[in-house]
């Protein structure tokens, strides 16, 4: 029998173990630095062997991420990281496979792959860094930019309605869906760790500040002064209460959420209680519809449910086939079906 550990084993890693030797080439002040740093620190807290982490990215500023992680990494092509990650995970299910993508990479050119990776529930950890702008191509509007946004490619204002990353994830039935922000390292660390521990596809949207082309776009929501009044931090089993003084709550008015002063609530049952494991996607979808400035913006884990993963089912099918038929014998396979012999010097009428 195992004996109880009096003290936990020392952690095998420090943050520095996850820092690669490559010079980081993001702009000074870029939100990606915070994400990189939180990721390195978070991984050092886990007991997953470093060589079992693989970071796979597409194209864009955030997709340089793998170069800076001292793990296995693959900087691929625009929008296609989920496809390579899927292939890798199918053949090496023991690895922890991360996908780092952006709003353009993941939702514009790579939207199709993102949807299919999520609906298959392949055990991938997908981090979508959303700064609502094309940074690496120097400042065009992205599929998550707000309508009317003035950029180099939309001097009269963008006429593209934005796509909502979390709605896409819910529609694709992702089993783990979360949102966090670069300005809140503690919250980000918690979310990334939960994403890593989830068995199945994890989809995390990180609001990220592009200091050059879309500076402070999330400041009104996530800025230090206003954060507590404008963010609704989701905690499983806890009522939806927010505000600096924690004096406001969310309840349903018909099918829609509304803000209510806690003092005015007569029956605490009126207040919505966060339930991340709701098997139906309706409630998580409702949360995604809460947007600034009308409503506080939900942060945290929207959804976390369990269902069999693609890689696990693939493995199960193979094991079942081997059990049923035995390990394949090549000689038998080649000789399967109708075969015939031609003898030496054979003559005769057929």
């Amino acid at each position, binding site marked *: 029998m195992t004996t109880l550990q009096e003290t936990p084993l020392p952690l095998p890693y420090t943050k520095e173990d996850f820092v*690669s030797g*490559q010079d980081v080439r993001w702009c000074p002040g870029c939100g990606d630095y915070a994400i990189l740093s939180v990721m390195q620190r978070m991984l050092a807290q886990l007991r997953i*062997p*470093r*060589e*079992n982490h*693989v970071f*796979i990215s597409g*194209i864009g500023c955030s997709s340089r991420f*793998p*170069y800076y992680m*001292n*793990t*296995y*990494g*693959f*900087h*691929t*092509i625009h929008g*296609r990281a*989920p*496809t*390579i990650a*899927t*292939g*890798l*995970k*199918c*053949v*090496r299910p023991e*690895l922890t496979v991360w996908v780092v993508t952006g709003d353009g990479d993941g939702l514009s050119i790579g939207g*199709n*792959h993102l*949807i*299919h990776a999520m609906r298959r529930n392949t055990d991938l950890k997908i981090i979508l860094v959303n700064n609502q702008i094309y940074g690496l191509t120097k400042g065009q509007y992205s599929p998550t930019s707000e309508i009317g946004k003035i950029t180099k490619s939309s001097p009269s204002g963008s006429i593209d309605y934005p796509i909502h990353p979390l709605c896409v994830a819910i529609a694709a039935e992702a089993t783990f869906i979360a949102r966090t922000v670069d300005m809140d390292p503690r919250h980000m660390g918690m979310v990334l760790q939960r994403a890593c521990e989830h068995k199945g596809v994890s989809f995390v949207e990180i609001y990220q500040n592009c200091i050059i082309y879309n500076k402070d776009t999330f400041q009104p929501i996530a800025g230090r002064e206003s954060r507590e009044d404008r963010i609704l931090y989701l905690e499983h089993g806890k009522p939806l209460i927010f505000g600096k003084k924690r004096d406001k709550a969310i309840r349903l008015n018909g099918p829609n959420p509304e803000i209510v002063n806690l003092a005015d609530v007569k029956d605490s049952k009126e207040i919505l209680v966060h339930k991340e494991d709701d098997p139906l996607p309706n409630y998580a979808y409702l949360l995604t519809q809460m947007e600034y400035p009308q409503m506080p913006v939900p942060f945290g884990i929207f959804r976390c449910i369990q269902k069999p993963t693609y890689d696990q089912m*693939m493995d199960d*099918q*193979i094991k079942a*086939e*081997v059990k049923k*038929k*035995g*390990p*394949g014998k*090549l*000689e038998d*396979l*080649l*000789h399967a079906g*109708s*075969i*015939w*012999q*031609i*003898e030496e010097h*054979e*003559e*005769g*009428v*057929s």
Partner: protein
Amino acid sequence: MSKVQTKEIEAVTIRFAGDSGDGMQLTGDQFTDTSALMGNDIATFPDFPAEIRAPAGTLPGVSSFQIQFSEHEIFTAGDSPDVLVAMNPAALKVNLTDLVKGGLVVVNTDSFTEENLKKAGWKSNPLQEGTLKDYAVLEIPISTLNANALKDSPIKPTEAERCKNFFALGLMFWMYDRKLEFTVKWIEEKFTKKPELIQANVTALKAGYHYGDISETIPGRYVIRKARLAPGTYRKITGNEAIALGIVTAAHLSGKQVLYGSYPITPASSILHELALRKNFGIKTFQAEDEIAACGSALGAAFGGHIGITATSGPGICLKSEMINLAVMVELPLIIIDVQRGGPSTGLPTKTEQGDLLQVMFGRNSDSPVPVIAASTPANCYDFMIEAIRIAVTYMTPVFFLSDGYLANAAEPWYLPDVAKLPKMQIQHPQSSDGPFLPYVRNEQTLARPWAIPGTSGMEHRIGGLEKADRTGNVSYDPANHHKMVALRREKVNRIAHSIPLMEVLGPKKGKLLVLGWGSTYGPIHAAVTELQKEGKEVSACHLHYMNPFPKNLPEIVKCFETILIPENNMGQLLLLIRGTIEGIHTVGFHRVTGQPFKIREIREKIEELL
């Protein structure tokens, strides 16, 4: 009993033609199986529309299956059928012009109704108007005879009608003295759970056979002796089946597992179907959301240390190009199978063409060399599939494998290999390094970089599409480094020429004319050149299977001939490559893009024109 004389002949070509729903592919397959099992050499050419069920009775809905079977070695399914079995007026209309003059037409007269004649565009009934005066005609009310034979069967009349192809097959079996037992066995296995269908189909088959025996209208009965092929064990195989078996064999030889990522596309899909059944052979199949994802999944698997394979046709190659270029940059083994079809764009999905050679050579941004292998017969798809995988894992490179719609579906006897004698593939993944691991240090001979795989402690490294610094693999924009890396990638592919066999010439090694082919033109070129050589003509042939790099002796071979004739099912793609790489030779192209393979006589005529 029939008083018909039985004659011995060397070879015969039969074409079964009917509506897409008439079961002509199945009928042809059964005739092929039986002929193969009776020891003939066989070659088949299935030809069917892209639509699953085009409107019944129309010209676009006609599906056909041609088989040549013989007592000697044959290389094609025959230029022109000796016998045409036409199940309806449309099938007669589409196929009649191909029949040899004096050949036999077998028609199902029941289908020659006014409505069907109109649908097929016959202004009058060809059975009555002398249209068929140059041919022997066997008018048989196949539907009626079949229905009579099945009148006691419990199955519905519509189901009984669907057995009529077996009546026609039975008749052909009688005419060519085939045994019924193989098809009977097949029917019994196919309909294990439906005994009434076994009985009905077997009855229809035997009714057709006995009709031949008793009708006394059949003009002749023929015997074709067993072919004198090399002694050994054979099975019938199509190109796509051979590819699938080649993949399973390569997995065995390398001790590796395979991820086959694919998106359904004609004419490549049957490889996916076949491999999906091979889970207990270490084969994982992944049906991706699109062509790009299919290629990406295979590359991801290669990164993980497995053999990553994807297959498609031309339109899919367009979509995969960027991913293949990534494989060039990161130098991982990736096998891309292109079963070519008529194009451009969606083109002719079910018809054959050799139009993708230049696409796979050059269809990527920048200088991006990728080795290209092309099979030339259905059976040698097996050998060259294994070879493509060997090259990919030995040189750490993506490799193209070219097949085409003809090879994919055509069948021939396959001399079964002795697996124990096939060379093993030695693959090593580095487990440790002195000092930091350098992912772009190269093997001195092959220039391959090490294949270190995720999960190996101490070998953590990053790869990607940005230019790599020599040795370290770090991102590098250094001008001199870029030039060096472009040259290294080129040189690595060129060095493959050291490990591939030299080409051999069929016929004299120098002279007036050399016919240089590649891919599925092998059959008609080989047959035409052999025939002409027997007639004393001075012509030689050689056939390319390695398209990039070329075998080392190709320049010296072609320089020994006054003229090089290059027949292709495209507008001159190998021609352009040869002209661009070998100086001082006289080349002539011969192009045909009809969606059909060359006929032997077309090649003959072209050769004779040049002699």
